[in-house]
């Protein structure tokens, strides 16, 4: 896996490593960090910070009514399909041609049935076109439908200043302030927009080299490589790292990009229960004891795929325990920090910093620039050998166009702001504001009595709706109140657990959050969404330790 003689980009990395050590104030000896530690010990036991996650189950009648609702929808779905098949109703969706009626049917499976009959009725809540920057507030194009969501037309009006609770704008870097974008505009004038080549041909610019060095310095690792697209980073690099004869242990709720990368690689995939260390350990033990399925040989490589923050649940990975397991059973760890980089941690360096651990504990650090940095693209970081190998063997490096230089400059300026290199404390302020907003929002939602999943520190806040009728009602009524939310149903979530997912941002002011919370309160009473049986108002004495948040 190593390519020791590669000096791909002609830079020496020695001075950078010393910078990392001086910066974090930890002296290393034999890979064990001594000296100043932030929270707790890094030998695998849980850090001293409380790890509070909520996955409350709704009362039984809610599950029953959800299934009743889906049953009614299914019955009417069959009725409409019958009417379409017998010509009593016009067919608006894709069907086979007349000559192909006797062939194997294309549109009879459950997914197409669900799309035709249930998704189409609520389709106006998704894919709403926006016409401004997705900051804390944005503008929507108004559209209406005349035939129950089969076609839409724009009225020409724009709905202005809708509060944005759906964009992944965690640190508020999606902004149009001319002052902030000065360097980006300058690079745009210097380089233009297109690179017109892949990384290995003519597409490596000095901007990419600068960005990669900055990313490595930010994360505290030896080297990093950046790619043009976050999804492609996962799906094109996992096949480069593992192949046939390797074992992938992947979390139940991993993102599609990780699943696609794992399947493309050709390795054997085993799934462990979400964030469940007993399940992971039993899989690891079985893998080591029994080896490969038929030949009983040892696996060439065992790699664990996890995410920093899971975007549908809002839960944070149990990193110290996974690192302890990985050391014990000698496996590799691939951590996808798409939602957690910039969003958790005292200075925004992700879950590794959140748990007070050493970045060397994780073998492959992956992340995206789409969420917290207001740009596009992804990175893979780790040891220099690993990154040099990826530079030559990744499909993305060989075939995909490299990142646009002005986008790279946006990431550079955002990262410099976060690290404090631009001379201000704006970056740290943003991270702290995000933390405050997150804790405030989650605390108020719990107090009001909603069922909210996930860790108390994660800026992704899923609020459970359960019933299919409420998905549409919730989204439409929130839009009437000028708040844009994202609702998710089957198949992105389990069928009985549809939810509304809020993404708190550092750019949201307290007034905006209060507006949203008041609207949620009102709507929660109107739609009867307050299912929680453990709201804080009922049991104040049990939740005292989480009340110590910084007040203004």
């Amino acid at each position, binding site marked *: 896996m190593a390519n020791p003689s590669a000096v791909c980009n002609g830079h020496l990395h020695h001075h950078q490593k010393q910078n990392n050590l001086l910066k974090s104030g930890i002296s290393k000896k034999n890979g064990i960090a001594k000296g100043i530690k932030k929270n707790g010990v890094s030998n695998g036991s849980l850090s001293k910070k409380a790890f509070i996650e909520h996955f409350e189950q709704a009362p039984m009648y809610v599950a029953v009514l959800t299934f009743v609702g889906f049953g009614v929808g299914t019955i*009417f779905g069959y009725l409409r399909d019958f009417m379409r098949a017998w010509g009593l109703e016009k067919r608006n969706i894709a069907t086979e041609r007349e000559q192909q009626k006797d062939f194997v049917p294309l549109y009879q499976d459950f997914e197409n049935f669900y799309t035709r009959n249930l998704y189409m009725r609520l389709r106006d809540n998704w894919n709403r076109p926006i016409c401004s920057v997705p900051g804390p507030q944005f503008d929507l194009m108004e559209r209406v439908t005349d035939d129950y969501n089969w076609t839409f037309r724009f009225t020409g009006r724009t709905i202005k200043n809708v509060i944005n609770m759906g964009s992944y704008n965690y640190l508020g870097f999606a902004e149009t302030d001319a002052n902030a974008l000065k360097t980006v505009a300058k690079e745009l004038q210097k380089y233009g927009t297109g690179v017109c080549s892949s990384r290995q041909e003519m597409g490596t610019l000095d901007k990419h080299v600068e960005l990669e060095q900055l990313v490595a310095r930010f994360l505290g690792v030896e080297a990093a490589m950046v790619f043009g697209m976050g999804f492609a980073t996962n799906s094109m690099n996992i096949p480069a790292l593992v192949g046939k004869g390797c074992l992938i242990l992947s979390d139940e709720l991993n993102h599609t990009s990780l699943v696609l990368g794992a399947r493309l690689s050709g390795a054997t995939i085993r799934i462990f229960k979400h964030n469940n260390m007993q399940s992971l350990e039993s899989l690891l033990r079985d893998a080591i004891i029994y080896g490969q399925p038929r030949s009983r040989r040892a696996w060439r490589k065992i790699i664990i795929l996890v995410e920093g923050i899971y975007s549908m649940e809002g839960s944070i990975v149990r990193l110290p325990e996974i690192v302890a397991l990985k050391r014990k059973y000698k496996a590799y760890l691939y951590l996808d920090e798409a939602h957690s980089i910039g969003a958790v941690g005292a200075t925004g360096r992700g879950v590794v910093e959140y748990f007070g651990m050493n970045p060397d504990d994780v073998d492959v650090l992956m992340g995206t620039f789409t969420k917290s940095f207001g740009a596009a693209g992804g990175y893979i970081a780790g040891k220099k050998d690993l990154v040099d190998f990826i530079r030559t063997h990744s499909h993305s490096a060989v075939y995909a166009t490299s990142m646009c230089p002005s986008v790279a400059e946006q990431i550079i300026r955002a990262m410099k702001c976060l690290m404090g290199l631009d001379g201000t404390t704006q970056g740290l302020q943003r991270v702290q504001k995000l933390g405050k907003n997150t804790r405030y929002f989650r605390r108020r939602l719990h107090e009001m009595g909603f069922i909210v999943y996930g860790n108390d520190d994660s800026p992704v806040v899923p609020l459970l709706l359960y019933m299919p009728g409420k998905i*549409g009602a919730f989204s439409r009524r929130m839009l009437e109140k000028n708040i844009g939310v994202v609702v998710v149903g089957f198949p992105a979530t389990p069928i009985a657990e549809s939810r509304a997912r809020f993404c708190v941002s550092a750019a949201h002011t307290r007034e905006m959050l209060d507006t949203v919370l008041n609207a949620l309160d009102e709507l929660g009473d109107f739609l*009867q969404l307050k299912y929680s049986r453990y709201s804080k108002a009922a049991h104040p004495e049990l939740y005292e330790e989480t009340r110590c948040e910084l007040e203004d």
Partner: protein
Amino acid sequence: MDFKRVKDYFYWLYFQYLLITCSYVLEPWERSMFDTILVTVLAMVLYTAYVFIPIHVRLAFEFFSQMFGGQPESTI
């Protein structure tokens, strides 16, 4: 004013019914069809209950009192 509050309350109840049975997503003619069928079934259930439950309760009462029968009825 009170009449408006009552009307709002009934509208809210009707809206809850729409959400729970997922009629909120249906088109108007589907909603009328569903409402009609549901009202018909409920009416039949209520009529059956009205006609048969008193008779069944009386028979059950007689059956059980026969089983424990033979005990002298207290006349005090």
